[in-house]
């Protein structure tokens, strides 16, 4: 952890009265694929622009490999950005676009030609080298933008919503390619995205942002399974939230839920917590012969959204509205219950987690 590539210390940026970035502390490790995840207006793009030097911070510091670059203009920072709409130079060919950064750094002509060849091969653009950007498809433009950012061997590549301009199918394919390219070149990537699936599937670590602050930084699995914040829990995936009180009774950890008239066993303590959260797929329909897990309660089926490999079941229990994901594992035993039916739901102690207020 000591050898961080990029360190942000108390970084802040205000636009008028609103704080776009509000005291952000962050460490990025060499070679990692890091994602900044958040809704629109959460400050993630501004944070990226601060790192690139395209905005000047109002407070805080940016250190790259231990060197303070807070006051350095963008053209002296050894990092490159892939812009949201690619910002390819329209009057230059694909090859000239890729060579742009190399020329500015004073590479020699033969070295430039070799590096451009290498980048074209890496991004499968060799045949399109002499085309102009407007003659390319969206996916091809995206690859040119990536090649242009990677060519001068930066310490860090910043990607601002790199896949958002592509259609759904292409996005899936480019996601796989992006991950493969990052592994191959070994350069540190910071990606900004509003798409949780994109962040979770690409990044080794994800920072969730809201209102200019970083709420939690963690591996994707940890963010999903053990969020430490209400916003994080509800932003990533879906979640059922139960109000109640946490108590420790002898060796057992319990959560009293008055709305369901039940007391649940849980696995991890959080003193003072008044919220229990459980993901829809952890809430299982119990076998008609009786529940097998220690926590169970009854609920009525309100509606069912059939989605092939699973069904999203909307349930009502007392005044509570809940979601359960019913996975169709085999054809015989896993039929969805009829609407209006009274069912028994169950979950294990480790399936739920407490949230701070």
């Amino acid at each position: 952890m000591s050898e961080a590539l990029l360190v942000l210390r108390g970084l802040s940026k205000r636009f008028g009265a609103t704080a776009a970035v509000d005291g952000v502390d962050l460490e990025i490790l060499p070679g990692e694929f890091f994602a900044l995840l958040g809704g629109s207006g959460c400050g993630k793009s501004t944070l990226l622009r601060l790192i690139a030097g395209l905005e000047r911070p109002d407070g805080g510091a940016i250190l790259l490999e231990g060197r303070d670059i807070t006051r350095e203009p963008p053209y002296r920072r050894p990092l490159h950005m892939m812009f949201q709409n690619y910002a390819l130079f329209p009057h230059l060919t694909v090859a000239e676009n890729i060579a742009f950064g190399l020329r500015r750094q004073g590479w020699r002509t033969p070295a430039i030609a070799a590096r451009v060849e290498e980048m074209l091969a890496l991004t499968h653009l060799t045949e399109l080298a002499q085309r102009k950007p407007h003659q390319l498809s969206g996916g091809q433009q995206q690859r040119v933008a990536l090649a242009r950012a990677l060519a001068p061997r930066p310490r860090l590549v910043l990607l601002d919503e790199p896949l958002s301009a592509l259609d759904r199918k292409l996005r899936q394919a480019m996601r796989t390619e992006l991950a493969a390219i990052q592994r191959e070149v070994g350069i540190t990537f910071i990606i900004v995205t509003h798409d949780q699936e994109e962040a979770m599937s690409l990044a080794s670590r994800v920072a969730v942002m809201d209102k200019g602050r970083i709420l939690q930084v963690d591996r994707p699995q940890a963010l999903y399974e053990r969020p430490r914040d209400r916003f994080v829990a509800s932003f990533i995936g879906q979640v059922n939230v139960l109000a109640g009180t946490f108590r420790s009774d002898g060796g057992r950890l319990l959560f009293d839920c008055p709305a369901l008239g039940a007391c649940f066993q849980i696995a991890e303590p959080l003193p003072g917590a008044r919220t229990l959260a459980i993901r829809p797929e952890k809430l299982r329909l119990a076998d008609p012969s009786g529940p097998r897990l220690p926590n169970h309660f009854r609920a009525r089926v309100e509606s069912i959204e059939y989605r092939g490999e699973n069904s999203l079941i909307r349930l009502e229990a007392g005044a509570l509205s809940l979601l359960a994901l019913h996975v169709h594992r085999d054809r015989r035993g896993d039929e969805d219950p009829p609407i209006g039916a009274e069912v028994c739901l169950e979950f294990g102690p480790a399936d739920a987690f407490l949230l701070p207020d």
Partner: protein
Amino acid sequence: MRGIRPFTATALILGLLFLYLPILWVVLLSFNESRLLTRFEGFSLRWYQALFSDPALLAALGRSLLIALAAGVIAVIIGTLAATALARFPRFRGRALLAFLSSAPLVLPEVMLGFGALILFVSLERLIGWPAGRGMMTIILAHTLLAAAYVTVIVQSRLAGRERVLEEAAMDLGADPLRAYLLVTLPSIAPALIAGFLIAFTLSLDDLVIASFTAGPGATTLPMAIYSKLKLGLSPEINALATLLVLTAALAVSIAAWSLARRR
């Protein structure tokens, strides 16, 4: 023309005739054998011959082209600089004033522009001895004044959008602000610069009012020469001249359209 209904087709043809019939008429008459301007009496190139052996008219044409070229180039430089300031710096002292002043010549009567320029040139000559008398230089300056306003508006609308991001991309890749402007911004607004130059060129080429105010002896421009001929009775060689001008303009517009289409 498939799918166009009779009414639409008629309206289109009438509209085009309204716009281009006068020009076509002039072109036709330029090949007229007769000295009469209103009756066609057979094909001939005699007026082209007459035109190319009229040194005064040819000198006026050369002068007008030179003035238009100079005014166009200067207007593009000044207009681009003003447009850059207006598009890139959202807030500075006097911005509103600059925005107003740079587009005011668009709506001011040309008579006022010409008269104002004349008074200024005369006063300046008295005060600092420059410009010494009126001539091509003063016409170029006055035409630049009007043309730069057009260039500013055209370039500014082009600069407002995408180019800012392109400049950021250039700086991100290691270009300092000056290089980012020269290597990326200028080439990507080239279509606007070409369009601005052509408009400035055309404005200057056919201007009669401003030129009449600011010209001096021996600096007669083409429109001035044509106009003075009108007072003495028109000769069909004007038709030949007009035909050549139309041809030049059509060629310039085609080149501009082609370059714009190629860029996009």
